[in-house]
């Protein structure tokens, strides 16, 4: 039986640490990760390679639409499950609770003031959709699959973390208040609307509809993701170079510790509601990942006092690369171990 830390290679089953290492190696050797590494290296080496902003934004719209639609189609095919509801609920709870944990940790591990700590914490409750997508692709390489509704869970987890963090800040700073404009901006953030909208479109059009646009949204997806990760690498590398001095050892440790912690909480929750291995893994990935689009924009509006140099560097320069390279195989090994999948 292919157990926790096993992996099938050709005809042979590779188990234990070997299985994990093989998985990690496969992950690190995939065009996706290598593209990201190329980006980071180019930026750290101060190459003048840059991606036009418009192209990066267009790619991100493409990816969100594609991933949303595929999720919706998968739900349309397999029928709506009661687990959809419980999984979304779990996602919301995790997203709202993780910032409290992160805030506490930051208080212990770093010297950030409350405002910056809360702003950073918001990022770790929310999610990174690219990490999620990379997780899906790791899952595929391992021959596993997940529920389509996990995309909806991803969308549901974007915003609650922001509200938690604003609540944390508002306890000490009366300037930070929730008004209806802010509330709408957070809930109708572009990436949430796109994910949910494409998810609904996928549910309506089903597999037949997807077939019509398959050669745009499905087959070229992975290649497009390579270029997107190249850009993410460039941005992350540039951020690291510019904000080196911001990254105290405490912050760095937090950026590497918080993701596995989040993954563990995600695992506990996922086990409680009975998610199968693939979905359990994605729930861990969502909990482990940190936002770098929706939350920074919200912080910029609601908590301008917080320093983007800190939260963006941590989220994009530390946690994102960690999850992408080492985190994903670790979480998959864990997910398999605890779910026996």
């Amino acid at each position, binding site marked *: 039986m292919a157990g926790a830390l096993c992996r099938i290679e050709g005809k042979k089953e590779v188990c234990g640490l070997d299985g994990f290492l093989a998985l990690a190696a496969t992950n690190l050797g995939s065009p996706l990760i290598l593209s990201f590494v190329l980006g980071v290296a180019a930026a750290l080496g101060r190459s003048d390679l840059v991606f*036009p*902003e418009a192209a*990066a*934004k267009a790619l991100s719209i493409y990816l969100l639409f594609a991933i949303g639609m595929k999720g919706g189609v998968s739900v349309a095919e397999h029928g709506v499950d009661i687990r959809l509801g419980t999984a979304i609920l779990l996602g919301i709870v995790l997203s709202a609770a993780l910032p409290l944990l992160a805030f506490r940790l930051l208080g212990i591990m770093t010297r950030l003031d409350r405002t910056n700590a809360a702003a950073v914490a918001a990022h770790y409750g929310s999610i990174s959709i690219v990490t999620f997508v990379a997780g899906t692709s790791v899952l595929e390489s391992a021959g596993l699959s997940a529920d389509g509704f996990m995309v909806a869970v991803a969308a549901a987890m974007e915003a609650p973390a922001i509200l938690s963090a604003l609540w944390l800040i508002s306890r000490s700073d009366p300037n930070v208040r929730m008004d209806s404009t802010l509330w709408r*901006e957070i809930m109708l953030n572009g990436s949430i609307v796109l994910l949910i909208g494409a998810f609904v479109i996928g549910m309506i059009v089903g597999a037949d509809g997807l077939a019509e646009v398959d050669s745009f949204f499905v087959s070229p997806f992975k290649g497009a993701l390579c270029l997107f990760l190249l850009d993410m690498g*460039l941005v992350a590398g540039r951020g690291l170079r*510019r904000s080196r001095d911001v990254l105290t050892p405490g912050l760095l440790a937090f950026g590497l510790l918080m993701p596995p912690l989040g993954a563990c909480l995600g695992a506990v929750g996922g086990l409680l509601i009975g998610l199968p291995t693939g979905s359990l893994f994605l729930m861990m990935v969502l909990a482990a990942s940190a936002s770098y689009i929706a939350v920074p924009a919200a912080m910029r509006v609601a908590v301008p006092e917080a320093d983007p140099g800190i939260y963006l560097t941590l989220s994009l320069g530390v946690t994102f690369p960690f999850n992408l390279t080492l985190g994903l195989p670790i979480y998959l090994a864990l997910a398999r171990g605890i779910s026996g999948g």
Partner: protein
Amino acid sequence: METHKAKQVTITIEAPMERRLRAVLDEAGVTGYSVLKVIGGSGRSGAWSAEGQVGSAGGMIQVICIIRPDRLDGLLEAAFSVVERHIGVVTITDCDVLRAERF
């Protein structure tokens, strides 16, 4: 050619604040302004550049209003309410304009 005195007010602010700034300017009756995109810069919080950015959080914009001198104070007060807690570099320059009836 005949020209008229006017003021040019330039507000440099975080891109995600554009909507709010616009709303406040509208409320204050300032209907004439143009928006430019800032593609990079440097400030107390370090240097940045828009290239490759996926989110709008990093970006900044410049809102430029040409107004009649007597309307300057109203504009500044409106702008200040948005800019206060934010980056908001606000500059005021004297200028001359053609066709003053526009302003």
